[in-house]
């Protein structure tokens, strides 16, 4: 038993926001529920009422409008991992989603839920940090856009209050330049396990195939998703060579400060593995230059 007093299934966003407004903090949004139900069972959360948004139409699409890809709040990890659109433009994201949990969990859990969990190693959210990502937040008084990085208040703390607001969509703006991206993850087994370390990389290319802009997101090596900013600066103007990738990978590892973890491994091991997976991701991304551009 999870001690909820009421369970609502609104048929529209307006209705859902109205319930949140009426209940004044006592009701909380639920989509897939894989995190929230577990937290409730473990007594880590105390939602008195749930507002299940899974019946609201128009929230499960993945679309491209101009240079922007929009992912609805109800889009599951399974949908994202199988999406032809994401595989074409954001293979790092579809790859990340394909490695979350298990097939059952991927059928239930949503990308927005992954963001709201505010865990630094949450795979889908981590991959999204490698792109120019924002979210649309709907509140009773109206909607606003927020940059993804601004959503993180700390470990497990999302700035969006799920008792007042609803994230309705994720938006990723594609650059004008050619973009390559990839995701790599190290874990103790292939399923139902948290990452030891993971990374999403994105490279925007100049016409001569040198790096115009690089993004390297790494988790879980800090309370929030981590960007290797010095390494990203290093990559600018560099060619896509194995030597550059190795240098960048080693630099990225040195930027991180993972903790010793009984669950994930020692600080030294995890830092060493950051170098391995960043190099792998950069290599993987560079292969895509020849295959899908």
């Amino acid at each position, binding site marked *: 038993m999870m001690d*909820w007093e009421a369970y609502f299934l609104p048929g529209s966003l307006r209705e859902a926001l109205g319930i949140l407004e009426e209940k004044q903090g006592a009701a909380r949004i639920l989509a897939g529920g894989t995190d929230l139900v577990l937290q409730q069972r473990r007594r880590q959360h105390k939602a008195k009422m749930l507002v299940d948004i899974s019946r609201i139409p128009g929230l499960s699409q993945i679309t491209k409008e101009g240079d922007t890809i929009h992912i609805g709040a109800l889009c599951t990890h399974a949908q994202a991992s199988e999406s032809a659109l994401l595989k074409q433009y954001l293979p790092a994201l579809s790859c990340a989603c394909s490695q979350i*949990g298990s097939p059952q969990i991927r059928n239930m859990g949503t990308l927005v839920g992954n963001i709201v969990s505010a865990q630094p190693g949450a795979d889908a959210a981590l991959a999204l940090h490698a792109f120019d990502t924002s979210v649309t937040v709907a509140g009773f008084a109206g909607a606003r856009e927020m940059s993804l990085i601004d959503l993180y208040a700390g470990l497990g703390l999302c700035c969006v209050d799920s008792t007042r607001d609803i994230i309705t969509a994720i938006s990723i703006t594609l650059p004008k330049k050619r973009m390559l991206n990839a995701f790599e993850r190290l874990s103790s087994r292939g399923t139902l396990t948290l990452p030891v370390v993971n990374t999403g990389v994105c490279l925007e290319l100049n016409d001569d195939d040198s790096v115009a802009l690089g993004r390297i997101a790494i988790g879980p090596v800090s309370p929030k998703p981590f960007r290797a900013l010095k390494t990203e600066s290093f990559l600018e103007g560099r060619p896509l060579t194995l030597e550059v990738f190795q240098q960048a990978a080693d630099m990225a590892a040195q930027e991180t400060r993972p903790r010793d973890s009984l669950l994930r491994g020692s600080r030294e091991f995890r830092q060493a593995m950051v170098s391995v997976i960043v190099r792998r991701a950069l290599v993987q991304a560079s292969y895509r230059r020849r295959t899908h551009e």
Partner: protein
Amino acid sequence: MHFLEVEPDASLLEVLRDQLFLRGTKKGCEEGECGACTVLIEGVPVVSCLTPALKCQGLSVETVEGMENGGQLHPLQEAFLETGAVQCGYCTAGILMSSRHLLEKNPEPKSEEIRMALSGNMCRCTGYLQIFEAVQLAAKKMKALEK
């Protein structure tokens, strides 16, 4: 179709077992990590321990009890028995539901596809090999039935 009154915080697993007495679906870890509670909602495998029962209002929920048809076992069930893929049986219902979804979506799965489809279902008895053989055998049986 079932019309039930359920508590707001009841899980689908609890309702299936304790109110509908459909006890084929098993309670394992209750944390979504073992797959013993796997059922199909709108034809898609989910873990019923983490699914609020009220989320399923108006949706189709299929459990292992629905696999046999008038006393005739589903080809998957036959195959599981033939290959020795059932030992204690606790994981079996969940694995059957995941397998059924796989074969409906992909009637001729490769070995790796079977492993991936069943990666959310734990078995502590068999070592999985007989289970994978059973799914491949069932695929052949189902293909033969279509002819």
